[in-house]
């Protein structure tokens, strides 16, 4: 069937004041393009400070303005029942309130602090349901119970009257997901949903997300820095560095053939089961401060492959389609000189969840 992207980000640029409110501005996100198709999982990968969260927050206009500012870009939101796509960045606060939670929901990183400590989890879920769905209170309670059942919480009816401090971290993340999904959103923004949880719970939560995605037919924007999570869940991978997307493609292409040296660095720094290691490889240095990005390619001071290439230190490489369905922003990537400047757009979905997640790293 002909597919329209559910969400299409065009040239999104977000800036913050570098030190003083009136001074020079730092660009946390710069000319980011990406698109998410219905029922697709797009993974946004990168180190801390790469602009992943700001990109996700921008979709819901959650970046605080001021100090932040949307410098440029459009975010086209095109749910299946809408006539024309709407630019989310142009919506008023009031219109955004209907999109938030109702059409696009968000799950945060820290489940321990993401629930309001003074209300029971039932009150919090029911408030969201009453806000977004035209139902009476009795039906809202039913929906809340169903939502808790869906995320695998035992005794959902009695759990409704529990306060958050009586639940464990994994339980609270389940509650957060239940709350996010209670209003049947089309897109779920999951900002590192498993980072604060221990490993066994991580696996449960990710499996839960996959399962719910299948049943609810929703898309997920998964923000993570864990490549294992990406390999098992994502359809499309966008690697971010210093506020830009540096590599973009279907998960298999990126894992089989990482083209950007930063992506290769990320893979090299991952431990592999069943293989003896010395020290793990690291990417030297840190993500540059957005207030003073180096001129040229922002990665060139840390780049292990090319040293002293004047092009790298003077000109920022554009994101080009170097192979079909595989974009990269690196002067030294094969075929970059003949790349196509099309905006990245991959509608690939893996056939069934958790099929062939082989860690084919470089």
């Amino acid at each position, binding site marked *: 069937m002909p597919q329209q992207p559910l969400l299409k980000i065009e040239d999104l640029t977000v800036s913050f004041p570098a030190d003083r409110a009136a001074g020079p501005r730092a660009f946390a996100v710069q000319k980011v393009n990406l698109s998410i198709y219905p029922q697709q999982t797009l993974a946004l990968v990168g180190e801390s400070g790469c602009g992943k969260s700001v990109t996700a927050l921008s979709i819901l206009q959650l970046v605080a303005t001021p100090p932040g500012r949307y410098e440029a870009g459009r975010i086209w939101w095109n749910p299946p029942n809408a006539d024309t796509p709407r630019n989310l960045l142009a919506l008023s606060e009031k219109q955004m309130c209907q999109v*938030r939670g109702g059409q696009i929901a968000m799950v945060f990183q820290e489940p321990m602090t993401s629930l309001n400590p003074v209300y029971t989890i039932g009150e919090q879920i029911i408030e*969201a349901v009453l806000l977004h769905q035209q139902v009476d209170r009795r039906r809202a309670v039913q929906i809340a119970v169903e939502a808790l059942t869906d995320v695998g919480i035992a005794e959902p009816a*009695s759990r409704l009257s529990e306060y958050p401090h009586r639940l464990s971290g994994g339980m609270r993340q389940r509650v957060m997901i239940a709350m996010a999904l209670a209003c049947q959103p089309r897109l779920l923004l999951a900002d590192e949903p498993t980072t604060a949880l221990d490993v066994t719970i991580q696996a449960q939560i990710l499996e839960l997300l996959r399962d719910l995605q299948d049943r609810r037919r929703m898309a997920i924007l998964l923000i993570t820095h864990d490549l294992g999570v990406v390999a098992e869940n994502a359809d499309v991978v966008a690697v971010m560095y210093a506020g830009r997307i540096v590599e973009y493609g279907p998960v298999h292409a990126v894992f089989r053939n990482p083209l950007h040296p930063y992506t290769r660095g990320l893979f090299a720094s991952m431990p592999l089961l069943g293989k003896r290691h010395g020290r793990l490889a690291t990417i030297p240095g840190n993500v540059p401060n957005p207030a003073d990005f180096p001129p040229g390619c922002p990665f060139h001071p840390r780049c292990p492959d090319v040293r002293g290439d004047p092009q790298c230190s003077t000109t920022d490489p554009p994101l080009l389609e170097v192979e079909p369905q595989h974009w990269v922003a690196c002067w030294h990537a094969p075929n970059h000189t003949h790349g196509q400047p099309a905006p990245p757009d991959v509608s690939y979905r893996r056939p069934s969840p958790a099929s062939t997640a082989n860690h084919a790293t470089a």
Partner: protein
Amino acid sequence: MSNVTSSSIPLTPQPAGPVAPTVRRTQPRSWLARVVLDTVGRAGAKVGLVWIATITFCAVFAPMLANSHPFLLKMDGRWSSPMLRHLTPTDVTLLVSFAAALTLWALKPLRFAHKAGALLGVATVTLGLSLLFVTPPKLAVLEQYRQAIEQGRVEWAVWAPVPYSPNDRQRDRFTPGRPHPWQPSREHPLGTERNGADILSRMIHASRNALAIGFIAEGLSLLIGVFIGGLMGYFAGPIDLFGMRLVEVFSSIPRIYLLLTFVAFFGRNLYLIMVIIGLTSWVGYALFTRAEFLRLRQQDFVQAAIACGLPLRSILFRHMLPNGMAPVLVNVSFGVASAILAESTLSFLGLGLVDEPSWGELLNQALSAGGGFHWWLATFPGLAIFLTVCAYNLIGESARDAIDPHLKRAPV
């Protein structure tokens, strides 16, 4: 538009049959409820609450405790109840609200917010109805009962424990050689003031004003302070800048001088005094609330609430306010104490209420009457003020300890 049925496939099958009753026993309680319980459990707060409860009892049952009108009277062969006949709308409202509060307290399943709302509703409705239908005689001649007794017309009567109304002035009675104020005696256990009114009776009735000043004035300043502070903290930026200037302006106004000026120009009015105390003491609450909101704004659950599409009203007042209220509430009890002191000071300076009983006004007479020092006029009202302020401070201290995480594990 919910075209996807959510519960068609349960992920975890629910156990059939009765669930083993061993999982959870304790009642889940909110953080605020736990703080309140912790506060009330502390020794200082208990002492304070006992005294406040005493004052409240006196305030509510003042017409039954100290009244020149007898409960029951058989005079000239006819039964009557002058006390009930002379109840004012305020008396009726207080009594009905008190009864409603006790009833609601006994109703366990209701939530605190619902109880408070119901109580407020009952109080308002009662006040409205009693203003319409409770019409005590405008002129009450308190002397009539004493004259009737002397004339032997009273066959039978039940008197209040203190058989004097606060404005039952016996200065004009014929008492040769004994000008008022009188020392404490059998007839007047705490003595009389210079107009011959019974001090104990006046003190009992004055507890109303003391409570009202404390709660209404502080309630007003709490409302203003939390609202302005909340907006300042949530929006930050220019609103914060403007709000802070407003705070600076108001904190530079000396409260007592403002009170004196207003009372001098607009007359002595209890409500005016309350409003002025309220308008000048919100600054502290605003600063506390602002600091809390600045902190809460960054919290994940507030971000999550925004991401959920909740309207600003709900985020500010439902999600942020209850989380930031504890330190503000601690200060309320100190504020109530200081409002009572302010009113007492005003009355002591002779610019307080006219004709209404007030502790400060009694204190004032200790010195001003005839140049001498009347110890009973200084001691008993002074003690009442001291104990009340002390009680509020004790409760405030306990509340502060209850929310202080550093003291949480300290041995008591």
